[in-house]
């Protein structure tokens, strides 16, 4: 190390480029277009785009966005079915330094309103599936996919000629997109992921489960769910191809699509694999290409692992654990499955996970506590929610950590085990929800006095306990009323009426006592 910094050689701008201060996630596509221009990047069953053509379209859309005056740190909100256009806009938004917000197409107007008021987008993207939400975008310019009668059409964003490359104006530590998820209260929270977060975690994941150039990766998870979205980065690192499917394809026709599209990598959630196992037992389809099965979002039961290995003997099964606030925590390798039953694997390389006690003190191996995570994959925090950010990302012993909210332990070999979810987050059907969100909506139903939401893990059911002032209110009325206000995965499977709900000392609903009732 030179003692006097003034003796350091002066760096030219191009050398600074080498340090990649301004790397952005669209570089994945630019690099892919350089290395394997003619490989197919995206297919959806009706169209195919090569890496080169994908990059050309992204540049074109980026130039259009710039002409609209959209730039660094502006937000663009997309509410569509899973489709290639959404991914193209997503990369173009990154290239101009703006911030993407991809939302679930089944979002309800109330939830959308809350997110729009938090993010104040400059532009929105809708399609025929979400056209009915257009009223919520009164104050926002809109681009439409597949709705010929509407104003600005997506196809108009793509120019015929070779578009100029709009230089990325930000730093690699800037926000690339927000992933909205349930906060500890009923309000949805946008996790702020930076370009650098994505780059670190994608490389670390690919080190653990390498995709190949000849792989065809299927996305049946919604793009609003980070695990669906991140597949586009992993594929680009290897030159692999993405099949963009829709969540509604994950039913009876799933096997047929996997066979027809020659899918080799299938990322999913336990519910999707439950359906896959059921269908393959009922009416088997040869799937010789399936090589990698990865599961996240919820606990993958041992019985599912055993069935997947039996039905798809050539496939490698990877159980994983993660949360949007850092994307991925750990991955269990296929050859570790038998020795480390029920583990969710080791933390990603270059990251650390440890359990802490109630006072935030580190616990020794094997002892259960709240799992905390450290590493370059930790998101910046929650969009415009400094208090909740400080609570979930506290500084312990001088370094910033993420409190997962999950209870678990780390064994002497560094493998993680999850023993229970916290009271403020529930994972159900691959979705994350906050009980507070369901309880708030329930209490808005006339006649409901109090509500408490918990998950029956053994039966995989979301349960709501309510006390009512009107004796005419029954289980099915309450479920139906909630289905209008909440996304399908957040609607309880069972509702139980109680004369009074158990309360804690400080008058909050006692969810532990409710669990004891089950």
């Amino acid at each position, binding site marked *: 190390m030179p003692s006097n910094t003034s003796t350091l050689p002066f760096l030219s701008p191009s050398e600074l480029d080498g340090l990649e201060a301004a790397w952005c996630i669209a570089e994945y596509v630019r690099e892919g277009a350089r290395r394997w221009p003619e490989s197919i990047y995206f297919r959806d069953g009706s169209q195919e785009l090569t890496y080169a053509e994908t990059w050309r379209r992204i540049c074109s859309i980026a130039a259009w966005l710039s002409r609209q005056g959209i730039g660094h740190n502006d937000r663009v909100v997309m509410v569509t079915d899973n489709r290639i256009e959404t991914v193209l806009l997503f990369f173009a938004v990154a290239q101009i330094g703006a911030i993407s917000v991809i939302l679930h197409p089944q979002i309800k107007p109330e939830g959308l309103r809350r997110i729009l008021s938090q993010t104040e987008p400059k532009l929105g993207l809708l399609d025929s599936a979400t056209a009915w939400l257009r009223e919520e975008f009164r104050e926002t310019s809109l681009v439409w996919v597949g709705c010929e009668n509407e104003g600005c059409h997506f196809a108009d964003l793509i120019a015929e000629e070779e578009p100029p490359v709009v230089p990325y104006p930000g730093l690699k530590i800037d926000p690339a997109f927000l992933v909205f998820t349930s906060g500890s209260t009923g309000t949805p929270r946008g996790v702020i992921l930076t370009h650098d977060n994505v780059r670190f975690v994608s490389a670390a994941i690919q080190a653990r489960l390498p995709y190949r150039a000849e792989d065809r990766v299927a996305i049946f998870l919604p793009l609003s769910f980070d695990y669906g979205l991140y597949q586009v980065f992993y594929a680009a690192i290897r030159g692999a191809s993405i099949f963009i499917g829709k969540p509604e394809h994950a039913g009876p026709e799933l096997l047929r699509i996997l066979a027809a599209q020659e899918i080799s990598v299938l990322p999913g959630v336990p519910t999707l694999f439950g359906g896959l196992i059921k269908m393959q037992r009922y009416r088997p389809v040869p799937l010789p290409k399936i090589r990698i099965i990865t599961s996240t979002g919820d606990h993958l039961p041992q019985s599912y692992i055993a069935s997947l290995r039996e039905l798809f003997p050539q496939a490698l099964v990877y159980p994983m654990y993660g949360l949007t606030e850092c994307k991925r925590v750990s991955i269990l390798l296929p050859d570790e499955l038998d020795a480390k039953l029920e583990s969710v694997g080791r933390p990603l390389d270059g990251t650390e996970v440890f359990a802490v006690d109630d006072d935030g003190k580190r616990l020794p191996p094997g002892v259960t506590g709240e799992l905390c995570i450290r590493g370059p994959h930790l998101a910046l925090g929650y969009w415009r929610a400094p208090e909740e950010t400080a609570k979930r990302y506290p500084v312990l012993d001088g370094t910033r950590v993420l409190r997962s909210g999950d209870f678990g332990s780390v064994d002497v070999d560094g493998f993680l085990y999850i023993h229970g979810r916290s009271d403020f987050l529930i994972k159900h059907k691959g979705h994350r929800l906050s009980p507070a969100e369901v309880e708030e909506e329930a209490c808005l139903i006339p006649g409901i006095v109090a509500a408490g939401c918990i998950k029956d893990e053994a039966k995989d059911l979301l349960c709501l306990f309510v006390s009512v002032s009107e004796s005419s209110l029954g289980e099915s009325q309450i479920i139906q009323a909630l*289905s209008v206000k909440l996304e399908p995965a957040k609607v309880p499977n069972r509702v139980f009426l109680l004369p009074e709900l158990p309360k804690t000392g400080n008058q909050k609903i006692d969810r532990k006592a409710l669990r004891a009732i089950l």
Partner: protein
Amino acid sequence: MTATDLPQKLQEILRPKLRFLAPSAEVPMDEDLGKLGLDSMASIDLLMEIEQQFGVQIPDELMTADTFATGSHLQAVIEKLI
């Protein structure tokens, strides 16, 4: 099984799988089944039940999201097969 029994039978199969539908309501045949509470897992159960109850096998080319989109789509497919 006669053609006139079909709508009634289909109603009976569909009804318990649509958890967002009011308890006493008939299944609206042109409504999106997803909106009525049928998720992908439930549509696999629905497929199995339809095949058993009607003694049919839905061929691969009809095993699509479109077939399972509404009650009337399902009915049209079953009518062709029995």
